[in-house]
């Protein structure tokens, strides 16, 4: 390849397939837009192919066949992008860790699953590790960050969100006690074992409140809805947002559970 050709290739913008995840798609689109903004600001071209769910609920309920069907659907939908980015550690974990596992030994699909896994990233990991982007945002106040389990333990995401938050002007990060302990969401667990889940989230909201932070952030909407729902029920005045909203400078919009204006 000639020098010009190399330059031309490197100049070609990165095409990112945004896998919004079903929760963001249905419940809180602004996380999807925040994600898109962060990627576009960093020079990526963002596309949103037709999509449903990564299949994790089926996978964790023991329905491997449905999980495989949905995985295949996602592999097809996202095959053509340079990268695939998800604003969720747990759905990214499903694609990166479990898709290859679901097709282990399948001559056609295992390589395709691995190829997708190799170019798939959770949002903060992608911004921090791949793009080395430092979003320029402002946020007045203190936040505390909850490490969602799958992102933390399947993908090792711990430093990246903190690194990004450190660059947000006006923001102070105060760590809660045991930020890496489960919030009790666990997908269908929180409905099937409602009382146990409640006990776990009670401990979490106590730690959140004790941190004194005005805002709770995390990278997974499921956990955020669980913690926000509990904070509201307990009357604890902590606002709850996805980290992408803060990084994208969208903190003036309603927080999770607040009425739309």
């Amino acid at each position, binding site marked *: 390849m000639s020098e010009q050709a190399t330059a031309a290739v490197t100049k070609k913008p990165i095409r990112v397939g945004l896998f919004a995840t079903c929760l963001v*798609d249905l419940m809180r689109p602004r996380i999807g837009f925040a994600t898109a903004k962060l990627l576009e600001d960093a020079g990526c071209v963002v596309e949103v192919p037709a999509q449903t769910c990564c299949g994790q609920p089926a996978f964790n309920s023991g329905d491997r066949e*449905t999980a495989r*069907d949905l995985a295949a659907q996602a592999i097809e939908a996202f095959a053509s992008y340079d990268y695939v980015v998800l604003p969720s550690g747990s759905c990214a974990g499903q694609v990166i860790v479990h898709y290859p596992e679901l097709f282990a030994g399948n001559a056609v699909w295992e390589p395709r699953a691995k190829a997708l896994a190799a170019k798939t990233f959770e949002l903060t990991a992608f911004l921090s590790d791949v793009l080395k982007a430092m979003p320029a945002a402002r946020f007045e106040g203190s936040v505390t960050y909850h490490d969602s389990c799958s992102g933390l333990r399947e993908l090792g995401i711990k430093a990246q969100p903190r690194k990004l938050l450190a660059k947000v002007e006006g923001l102070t990060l105060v760590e809660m006690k045991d930020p890496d302990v489960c919030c*009790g969401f666990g997908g269908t667990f*929180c409905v099937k*074992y409602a009382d146990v889940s409640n006990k776990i989230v009670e401990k979490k909201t106590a730690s959140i409140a004790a941190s004194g932070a005005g805002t709770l952030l995390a990278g997974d909407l499921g956990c955020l*809805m669980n913690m926000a729902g509990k904070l509201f029920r307990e009357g604890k005045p902590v606002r709850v947002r996805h980290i992408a909203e803060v990084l994208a400078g969208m903190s003036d919009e309603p927080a999770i559970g607040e009425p739309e204006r």
Partner: protein
Amino acid sequence: MTQAVNSPQFNQNARKALDDSYLQKALARSEKGFIERRKAAVEKLPEYDALRDSARDLKDHILAHLDLYLEAYEKNVIASGGHVHWAANAEEANEIILNICQRLNAKSVAKGKSMISEETGLNTYLEARGIKPIETDLGEYIIQLRGETPSHLIAPALHVTKEQIEADFRRAHTDLPPERNLDEPTSLLAEARAMLRDKFLSAEVGITGANFLIAETGSSVIVTNEGNGDLTQTLAKAHIVISSIEKVVPTREDAATFLRLLARTASGTDLSVYTTFSTGARREGDPDGPLEYHVVLLDNGRSNMLGGKFQEMLRCIRCGACMNHCPVFHAVGGHAYGWVYPGPMGAVLTPSLVGVEKGGQLPNASTFCGRCEEVCPVRIPLPKLMRNWREREFERHLQPASVRYGLGIWAMFAKRPVLYRRATALAMKLLRLLGGKGRLRSLPLASGWTRHRDFPAPQGETFQTLWKKRDASR
């Protein structure tokens, strides 16, 4: 299976546990200590993670050659003057032990801590036949007085407070003067020590479990901090070891590797106070030690686990770290799991040993947070194994119809993106109307959620709809 299984009632058990203020107090106290002590011990040993890898590989090697290591072990027990008994199930194990006790005219047996004897329900069995088992581990002794089962692998009385222990001692130790002060743990310990000393000295038979069995020498290994298991086996006429078959390790070097991991992970110490290697009975010239040495090797379903989806569970060395780090265990304690083994290891092992029909609730009662796998000293992928059970349940249609039905409908839409987009766009609009204040306080199909928390309402239109609009406006 002698020990009754109460696992299908997990949710009811959990509710009871959540309402038990004594238990909640005990759980809150224990949670921090275990986690912090393990962390400190592990940080002091730079090779800890490399040791875990080597222990995992070693266990895999052992399990792949289990028949041959067991044969070598048996040969060496016999060569050193001991006896080996094979028990396919709990009943056989109990019967073998009863026969030895009856032959020796035993009235009482002293017991070191053994989860396998919990699995076989040995105490109840012996008691029903006129032989008094006396638990000598302080925690086990406490729960024996209370008529309970252990709620934790290494801290069987984790769920009991010191006030409850005082009341139990006053009830059971009838010659205890009422004015004796038992307010402090130290005075409770002194009382137990004095009570149990006589029992050690008078028991005809001593029964212990085994943390490891060494094929090379035919030795059994126990670890204790109290010295109770060691006294149990030294003072009695006969020492009976009850162990499951997967505890065998090839050599003394291999035992050392596991011992370097066990106490650090379990209680945060480099080693337990006492690690005792027993090989055969009293020898010529020995002034003490048991006159007979027996090993009862229990299968009870383990050989079925080999070569299959749950073989990795047989790597477990019973340290308790998985439960010490489990948010579900912290919430409900060990008894809610309804059988012998609690926490994540119990959630995988119980269905393996009692069947998924009875044990199937347990692998479902997990958030899959993965902290158990993160701390497991032999790197058992506990969430993956729990998921394997859920798959087994799904294949066999064992889940509740509502769960299956709900999942089926959702899958039907999720597999059809166009239909999904239309249906969800409509549903979210409806839900948004209901939750105009930003959140819902009750939702008919998700009462499990709204019983305890508000449900944040959806924004309104879906991301995919809005994104299309954005694209169109550009």
